[in-house]
């Protein structure tokens, strides 16, 4: 009996080791036909996380198909923060030409690794670096948020509530830009609208997201925009319970997450952050010999941010038209969206 128990325990621990070990799939030697080789290091999300990492990988896949060739693009997944430096270095040791790191969590790892491999170029998303071989991509989240704000403002006017909400993750400059754009978008089409603002102080506390959503819906809000990662799951759950209220998704198209039994979704629209645009553009620039180690802010006119406006979902044709007209005005420069919010955490206008 004891021997069997020991065996089970050892098997379980071995499984744990497998689960925690550093997966090194999809790396190989350099193919000789490649003009440049590219390596993507994901954070703990993996290339199929339906979020940033996947988007980054899709951008590189598009590059591979159109320009570079399938074998020239590889990825390494990080299974913990401790994997960032070894994974970046592994690509560096292989002589990879462009190494892409997804997410601001790579801030320190890039500073540590990039100077060791002066012949490689780096691209880091969502954070900036002034090293001479590192390009950075940041996003004007306020522009995309303005567009979903327009959708919220129009919908609140139509349903007669004139009350909308915003739930952010950590109260930081990065997330405040989402709030600022949203406020301006709502008020642009609905100057009478009341906007409630709350921050969850977390990106993972789903229960708190739901509790905040209960509060805002109880106060009469009919649409809530969340810029809060997994906290938004709680907001979506609460909207499903209530019916007749909406959630606006963030970073990626969250329509599927809001799906109810009857096949309808509580997701009115989503604010999109196009990481694929950044990885594709940078890969292509290096391929064409135009790589610059600059900070690029991906804006609406560069297709870096946007709103999900597919027809046949929850937005009406009129709402889509209005959003499109605001896209034009922002791209033309007729409207300048500020990244400074005006409403404090826990209050309303």
């Amino acid at each position, binding site marked *: 009996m004891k021997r069997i128990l020991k065996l089970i325990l050892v098997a379980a621990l071995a499984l744990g080791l497998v689960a925690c070990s550093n997966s090194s799939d999809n790396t190989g030697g350099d193919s000789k036909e490649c003009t440049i080789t590219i390596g993507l290091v994901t954070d*703990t999300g993996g290339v199929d996380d339906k979020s940033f990492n996947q988007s980054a990988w899709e951008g590189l896949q598009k590059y591979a198909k159109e320009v570079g060739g399938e074998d020239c693009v590889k990825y390494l997944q990080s299974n913990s923060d401790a994997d960032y430096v070894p994974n970046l270095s592994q690509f560096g040791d292989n002589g990879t030409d462009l190494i892409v790191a997804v997410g601001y969590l790579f801030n320190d790892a890039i500073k540590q690794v990039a100077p060791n491999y002066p012949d490689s170029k780096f691209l880091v998303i969502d954070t900036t670096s002034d090293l001479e071989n590192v390009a950075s991509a940041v996003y004007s989240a306020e522009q995309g948020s303005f567009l979903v704000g327009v959708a919220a403002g129009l919908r609140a006017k139509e349903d007669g509530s004139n009350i909308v909400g915003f739930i952010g993750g950590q109260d930081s400059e990065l997330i405040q830009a989402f709030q600022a754009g949203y406020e301006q978008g709502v008020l642009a089409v609905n100057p009478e609208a009341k906007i409630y603002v709350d921050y969850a102080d977390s990106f993972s506390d789903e*229960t*708190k997201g739901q509790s905040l959503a209960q509060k805002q819906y109880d*106060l009469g809000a009919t649409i809530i925009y969340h810029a809060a990662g997994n906290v938004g799951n709680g907001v979506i759950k609460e909207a*499903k319970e209530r019916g007749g209220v909406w959630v606006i998704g963030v970073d990626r198209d969250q329509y599927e997450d809001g799906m109810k039994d009857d096949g309808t979704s509580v997701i009115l629209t989503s604010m999109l952050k196009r990481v694929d645009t950044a990885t594709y553009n940078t890969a292509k620039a290096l391929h064409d010999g135009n790589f610059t180690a600059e900070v690029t802010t991906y804006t609406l006119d560069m297709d870096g941010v946007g709103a999900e406006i597919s027809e046949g979902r929850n937005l009406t044709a009129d709402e889509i038209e209005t959003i499109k007209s605001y896209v034009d005005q922002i791209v033309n420069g007729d409207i300048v969206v500020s990244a400074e919010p005006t409403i404090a955490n826990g209050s309303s206008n």
Partner: protein
Amino acid sequence: MDIIVSMFPSAMMIAAPIIIAALGGLFAERSGVINIAIEGIMTVGAFVAATVCVLLESNPSLGAYAGWIGVLAAMIAGCVYSILLAVSAINFKADQTIAGTALNLLSTGLCVFLCQIIFDQQRTQSFSRGISQIKDVPILSDIPIIGDMLFSGIYPTIYVAIILVVFVYFLVYRTAFGLRLRSCGENPHASASAGIDVIRMRWIGVLISGLFAGMAGGMMVLTSSVQFAASSIHGVGFIAIAALIFGKWNPWGVLGAGIFFGFSSALGTRASLIPLLNMIPSEFYSCIPYVLTIVALVVFSGKSVAPKAEGQIYDAGKR
């Protein structure tokens, strides 16, 4: 007033998994095994509940009950997972805290790994319903004020939690089994000399604790999220241990502590609307459970509140 009434369903939703998980902890600790792995067992429960729910929801005959079948599966999974703790801490006499910590560390890796195999992504797919709120409990919801506070727009999980508190109280304090269980946590050698199989009682304590913690994790993900992700439990298992300590290892105390922690959390999200309370930063409310637990530990120290042999390895040959 409206704000206070609307706080109730929110507080109850937060309290239910804390209470159930803490009751689980109570079984293990009363039998003499510290179960620090509640967080990890809840994570496994949450993963299994979400997975079962996603897979069954589209089934025409079982779909309507998918959430509760998920919770049932979570209980079984929690129980199975806690075998690891029982084997290492009871049979192999490993340090209970270290074995529990290992279970916590293993749980997220294991669940994300299984998500990758089943769903080909690092989280489960989203389920469409999970466990739904009860819009209005018949008759009871018509009671003025109290009806709105406790019987409308509320998750049934809190009712399950309260029933379990009563059940656990009778089982632990009013049956021969309960007396034997508690004696193993107070003085296992005396229990053994009275003919009680200490090893067996501790096994039962740990397994029931896994059953409850798995249920709590499953309920938590199905009530307040749309999918399982590695961060789904985010420390609630440790708050449950805090509730167990603050509730003096007693089911009624656990109920009070759990509801209190639920309220402090719900109040934190609404304080900005209440005069006077809006002067206190919201972080204050988030730290209440931890501060109170430290206070409780200081106050209880030296008094015989905790099970005496808790955390001690049982070795029949040692006196």
